[in-house]
């Protein structure tokens, strides 16, 4: 009896407790630091949309109570809420809005009442987990990031032993750029988590029909998260054809697996159910959604000292542009993580040879013949190809010169958990080598944990170092923040970095109250005010070049293409000297200027 109980407990610890602890530690880490992270352009719009979507949910309930259940489902009622920010599906925004409604400390009946995008009729009952409303909005993203770590662990466990899988899981979140995106109410880490969820379900579906059905549901959730999900079936199909390449040689077409049938049917259905904006014109609006992202404009983005805002036309620049995701990866991932991933790649390439085999968990074919319910039961599931496709796929998409690069690393974040499974394999190998080298039993026992901690330490330290400016962080190879700036790599976007300057801005608020906030969106200013970080009535001169002249205090977010706005402030305020500069490790992120009494022409002399 006891002989059976011990392995069960150990198995429970390994398969559930360890990932749960990792997930909780991840979310706790993010909750502890997210308050230092400013509010970006996109995030502030998702706050607004999320609250409006929640307003619609409330209207469903209110109409139901009033005996008019259909009213909330009319086109006007649905579009009234869901038309807001309809370029992205609603699932995450609905979660953000719901979390806000449930978990913020309500301070919405006084002067802040008018700052909400939905009518506030009375003080709502909430569970006041968060002092700041923005934290309540971000909570689902943070929980999902925690889940992402657990999923990375479970994915890695399909191929690796527990300790290397745990290393893979930690490394999947301990990346400065990933961490930046993981704690904010946006979609880039949520879609990465969904990528792992769908991939894991597909992997398991190769030998379990239950997971085949779930794969379709999960893909629907991914579709309802962000449009990156459109690519997932192509990655899975590529792997499936590779795994079943024996069928193609015979020649015989491989069976269509249950996972694909499920994705084709349940996926769109789940998307449709979770996105009310589609309900009244599903075909037309799906087309509009697809077209929006297929024809997305090229925003400005700095890469290797150049400002990129159009697809390059000459060959030299096209080639330089192709290098973008590779060089960005080289300069943004912790170097130790990359070294481990390189070792892991070699191990996967040599997986079927005897010498590398012990790093991997054995999962031999279980059946002689496949079936559409278990299409991977009779073959090796080709874990290396599976990881390679999920790493190369998103990166290759961004490498195309015609693809906009304005989001930088965030556009290929879905590759990262898979890359970290490779790094986990590398860690497993290193632990194995060290274990064989060590003679002393005590040392041998302590080594796996010590090495795992040591191998995760640089990634964790770099991530902590980068906060709250993970976008501007570059690794040891690039020379950190300063090195990245010197190389002409992108420093930031979205105007999130104004947060550390807010106390200074309040202290230097001009009598006229005319403040130019540059790239900090009005929605972000509203949320800073709701959070109590800006006083009610703080001025906002608006956007555009023409309003700079009318302001008396202004900031410029430092991005290469924003130089024009700094020039406008020089001219309007009659000075080239910023009154305040926000820096991270000495690298400027935001400059603030005040209008001088002296005329510009006098200063020029």
């Amino acid at each position, binding site marked *: 009896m006891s002989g059976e109980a011990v392995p069960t407990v150990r198995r429970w610890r390994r398969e559930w407790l360890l990932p749960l602890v990792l997930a909780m530690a991840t979310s706790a880490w993010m909750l502890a630091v997210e308050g230092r992270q400013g509010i970006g352009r996109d995030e502030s719009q998702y706050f607004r949309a999320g609250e409006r979507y929640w307003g619609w949910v409330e209207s469903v309930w209110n109409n139901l109570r009033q005996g008019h259940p259909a009213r909330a489902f009319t086109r006007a009622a649905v579009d009234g809420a869901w038309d807001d920010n309809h370029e992205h599906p609603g699932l995450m925004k609905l979660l953000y809005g719901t979390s806000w409604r449930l978990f913020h400390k309500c301070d919405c009946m006084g002067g802040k009442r008018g700052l909400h995008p939905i009518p506030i009729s009375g003080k709502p009952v909430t569970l006041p987990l968060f002092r700041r409303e923005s934290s309540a909005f971000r909570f689902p993203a943070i929980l999902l990031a925690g889940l992402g770590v657990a999923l990375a662990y479970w994915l890695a466990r399909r191929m690796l032993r527990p300790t290397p899988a745990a290393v893979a899981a930690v490394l999947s979140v301990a990346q400065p750029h990933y961490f930046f995106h993981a704690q904010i109410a946006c979609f880039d880490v949520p879609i990465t988590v969904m990528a792992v969820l769908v991939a894991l379900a597909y992997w398991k579906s190769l030998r379990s029909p239950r997971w085949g059905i779930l794969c379709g549901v999960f893909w629907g959730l991914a579709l309802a998260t962000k449009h990156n999900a459109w690519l997932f079936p192509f990655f899975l199909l590529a792997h499936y054809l590779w795994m079943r390449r024996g069928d193609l040689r015979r020649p015989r077409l491989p069976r269509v697996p249950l996972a694909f049938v499920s994705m084709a049917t349940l996926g769109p259905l789940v998307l449709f159910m979770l996105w009310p904006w589609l309900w009244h014109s599903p075909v037309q609006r799906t087309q509009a959604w697809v077209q929006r992202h297929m024809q997305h404009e090229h925003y400005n983005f700095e890469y290797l000292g150049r400002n990129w805002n159009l697809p390059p036309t000459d060959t030299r620049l096209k080639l330089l542009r192709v290098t973008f995701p590779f060089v960005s990866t080289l300069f943004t991932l912790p170097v130790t993580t990359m070294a481990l991933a390189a070792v892991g790649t070699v191990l996967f390439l040599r997986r079927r040879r005897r010498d590398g085999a012990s790093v991997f968990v054995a999962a031999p074919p279980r059946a002689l013949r496949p079936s559409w319910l278990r299409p991977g039961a009779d073959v090796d599931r080709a874990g290396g190809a599976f990881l390679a496709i999920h790493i190369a796929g998103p990166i290759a998409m961004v490498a195309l010169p015609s693809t906009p690069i304005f989001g930088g690393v965030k556009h290929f974040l879905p590759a990262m958990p898979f890359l970290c499974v490779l790094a986990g394999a590398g860690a497993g190998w290193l632990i194995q080598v060290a274990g064989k080298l060590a003679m002393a039993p005590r040392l041998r026992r302590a080594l796996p944990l010590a090495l795992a901690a040591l191998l995760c330490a*640089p990634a964790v*330290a770099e991530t902590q170092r980068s906060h709250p400016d993970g976008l501007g962080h570059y690794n040891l190879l690039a020379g950190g923040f300063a090195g990245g700036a*010197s190389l002409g790599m992108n420093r930031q976007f979205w105007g999130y970095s104004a947060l550390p300057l807010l106390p200074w801005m309040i202290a230097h608020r001009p009598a006229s109250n005319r403040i130019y906030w540059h790239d900090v969106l009005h929605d972000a200013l509203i949320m800073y005010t709701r959070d109590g970080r800006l006083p009610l009535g703080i001025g906002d001169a608006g956007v555009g070049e023409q309003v700079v002249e009318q302001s008396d205090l202004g900031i410029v977010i430092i991005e290469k293409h924003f130089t024009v706005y700094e020039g406008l402030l*020089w001219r309007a305020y009659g000075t080239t*000297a910023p009154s305040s500069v926000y820096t991270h490790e*000495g690298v400027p992120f935001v400059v603030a200027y005040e209008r001088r009494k002296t005329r510009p022409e006098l200063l*020029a002399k």
Partner: protein
Amino acid sequence: MFIDRDYLRRRRVAVVLGAIIVLLAVVETGNALVAPLRTPSDRDWTTAAARVRAEFRTGDLIVAAPAWADPLMRQKLGDLVPQAVAGRMDSARYGRIWEISQRGARAADTTGAAVAATARCGGLTVRRWEKPPATVTFDFLTEWRQASMAVVHADGVEIPCTQGADRFQCVGAALGPELLEIDTTLRNGLAVDPVEGVTLALEFPAVPLGRELTVAAGLHNVWLRKSSDGKVRLRVLADGRELGTVLVTSTSGWSRQGYDTAALAGQTARVRFEITVDKAHGRHLGFAAEARNP
């Protein structure tokens, strides 16, 4: 005995590779902890600024290296770097250049100069570079009021423009000094929106020439450069003889040309700039020029 020497002998490559990765992890962790402490502090900047101020002379140039530290330099010394200097065409006219440098960087403005003084201020290095300055015999930007301007039609008819307080006003065009953003850098220049089908001619009647006439030109505003693709031509003539043409496009940046005027050095000449464009939409040309002895 902690180590299996036999295993070490058999798997030497693997052990060395493993040791390298472990060492890398230690170095990377250490760097992540230590690097932030090596950042130049506000105190370093204040000290460096005080040192520059103590010896600064009118006509000196102050720069930061790397260039991304420029806002920090201007925060401390912006009063000594007015717009006219910050938006300079180039640094040829500056004989003394103060460089506040970090991490071993060197400013491009100091090319060809020699170090005359160096001082460490914490994480910063203050260097005074010296070089023979170019003697500017005529600055077309600051002396723009000496010029006349006309719109020249294809049939040769010239319609003169009127000179206002801050610009020339022509039929369908205007030209005057502005602070411009060209190639994501701020530049002082004469700004004009070229017009299709005509030539905008800016003529300086009596320019004291040096051995070189330097012209720099580019297109203003990142958004306009993105949305338009017209090509602007800036033709430069001295006493009716063409010195050259600067071709300005969305990607040509701040394009600088030096024309040899040694044959006319010391003489006064009529210098004419002719501006034409194939597609005028979104083209906002900025240019500056100096006659000088390098």
